[in-house]
């Protein structure tokens, strides 16, 4: 039994955004011309945080935010009226079934991490770009909620590969989410939390809400830790 999670080193993130773009490529997320930072779909989103001071005491850092895959009474899973959110006991991944989603957005209200995004528009790609879509992920239509699912498509591909080779366990090198793969600085590391405990000085966001998130952040900077 696995408990997939991430160790994210805030000190190594330079806010380049390669992870965000890789996520969009992997998950066939439509580019929406009319979207802004409130209506866009960015299952992984890098926020810029700062210490609130003025120049020259201003310090900034970047924090990649994605679905925290809450383990304790997963808020979104509890509130979905038609069980479109599925928490996999084998992996701890919180999956979203876009085909069952009604689009009531109650889960979006329940999520304190703003990790869920709604398809406000019909998906449209520039002419010809549909050819470059990832066949492992189904594009969603408008009116449904989506979020990070740790690149489910890649996990399925890894499972198929293992099955074809007659193995029971997948090879960890075969299952790396797109963001972790794309990050040039190695700030995002995808791990099995059962096999690799988080470094001692890690923190999680909104710990006191008791959601048991699986994304562990670390930073040597005090102001970043206070912000978390």
């Amino acid at each position, binding site marked *: 039994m696995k408990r997939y999670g991430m160790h994210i080193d805030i000190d190594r993130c330079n806010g380049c955004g390669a992870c965000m773009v890789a996520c969009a490529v992997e998950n066939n997320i439509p580019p929406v011309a009319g979207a802004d930072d409130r209506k866009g779909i960015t299952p992984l989103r890098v926020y810029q945080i700062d210490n609130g001071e003025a120049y020259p005491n201003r310090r900034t850092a970047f924090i990649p935010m994605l679905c925290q895959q809450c383990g304790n009474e997963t*808020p979104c899973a509890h509130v979905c009226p038609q069980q479109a959110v599925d928490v996999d006991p084998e992996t701890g991944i919180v999956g979203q079934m876009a085909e069952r989603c009604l689009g009531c957005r109650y889960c979006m209200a329940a999520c304190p991490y703003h990790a869920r995004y709604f398809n406000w528009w019909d998906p449209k790609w520039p002419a010809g770009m549909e050819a470059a879509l990832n066949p492992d992920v189904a594009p969603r239509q408008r009116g449904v909620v989506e979020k990070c699912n740790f690149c489910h498509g890649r996990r399925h591909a890894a499972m198929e590969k293992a099955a074809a080779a007659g193995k029971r366990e997948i090879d960890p090198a075969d299952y790396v989410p797109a963001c972790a793969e794309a990050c040039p600085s190695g700030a995002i590391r995808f791990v099995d939390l059962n096999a690799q405990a988080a470094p001692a000085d890690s923190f999680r966001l909104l710990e006191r809400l008791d959601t048991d998130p699986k994304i562990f952040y670390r930073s040597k900077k005090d102001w970043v830790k206070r912000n978390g």
Partner: protein
Amino acid sequence: MDKFLIARGLKRCSTGRFLLWVGPWFALLLFGLYAAGLCLVKGLNQTNMDNRFAFGLWIFLDLTVIALGAGAFFTGFLLYILKLDDLRAVINSAVIIGLTAYSGAVAVLAVDVGQPLRAWFTFWYPNVHSMLTEVTFCITCYLIVLAIEYVPIVLKNRRLKEVPSLLVFEFQLHKLMYVLAGVGTFLSFFHQGSLGGLYGVLRGRPFAFREGLFIWPSTFFLFILSAAAVGPSFVLLTTWLVEKITKKQLVRTEVLQLLGRISGLLLSVYVLAKTVDTLVWINRTSPHAGFPAAQFYGWKPFGIEILFAEIVLFGLLPAAILLMPRLRARRGLLVTAAALACCGVTLNRFVQTVQTLALPTLPFDKFLSYTPSWQEVGTFLAVVAYGVLVYSFSFRYLNVFPEERALKVQPAAPQEEEEPAYAGR
């Protein structure tokens, strides 16, 4: 022209005048249907809701109209179960208000969800942990109950009464009223409560999250109380409004006084419960989640004034007025107090939906604001127009107020009167 449809002994204005009244509301309904149609065809990007404000004007108004329409179940409970016979004068009106409120809310919900065709999934894959499942089931059942309760009112129409089978059907149906009232009360108890539970269970929103009893957060009970308190007030308000517009006396003063007293009593219980709940939240629930309550009120324009307004201005004040017989006796004060109570419930629903979502949760969140788009406002106005139209037609052709005939007075000379604004339907 349509005299044959109007009940004998009741005076109604001329057909032409009625059409003049109905016309603009019909136009508003068409405009609203167009706005809703845009949202259905082009998608919800037509609204100003976004990933942060997943709930906007529509959900806020749905909750409000359902709370205001609670007069239907509560009046029925008081009349048929507790045998407060004076309320027979307003039960029909309450049922019509309830029916239009609930059917309007359901219609808006059909536009609000991204995939309305999948609405039946909630019945097919229900999630027992989710308050919204409970709301869906209960409201669907209750809408059916309300529709059945409305049928006898329709069947008592002058022309329809002449059809023997319908007369018999209506008579049989009437025997069911007690059962329906009981079922309606039971269903309403749960869905009014679950609507409150929707927000009280959100652990991720410490502003709204409340501890409670067993699986029900305190907001479950607060919503039931506030709905029950405001239901009679809204019935009172609409009765007064209809009396003003039609220039007739439709109910005895004692009935309005009774409605006011009931509302005042429940309102004071609600204010007490809400105060206790707020204190528990400030001192225990919110700090336990890592959010000192005062932090929430630092974001303009959502200052501490809102809490004060909700509990004192729109809660304690109208409760006091409605409980004191001498103040209640003055029509102006009575109606004002009822209106204040309705405003209080509206504000409370707003706080639970829009304010909850506006307040940041992550330490690096920005405080964002939201204004509804014209398509959202238009859709909502369609519900208001729909309610006014159904009520107008019902009032004209059906005997909505049984005491009207007994209280018939000569109407004053017809004058053009400004339409007063509806107190938020």
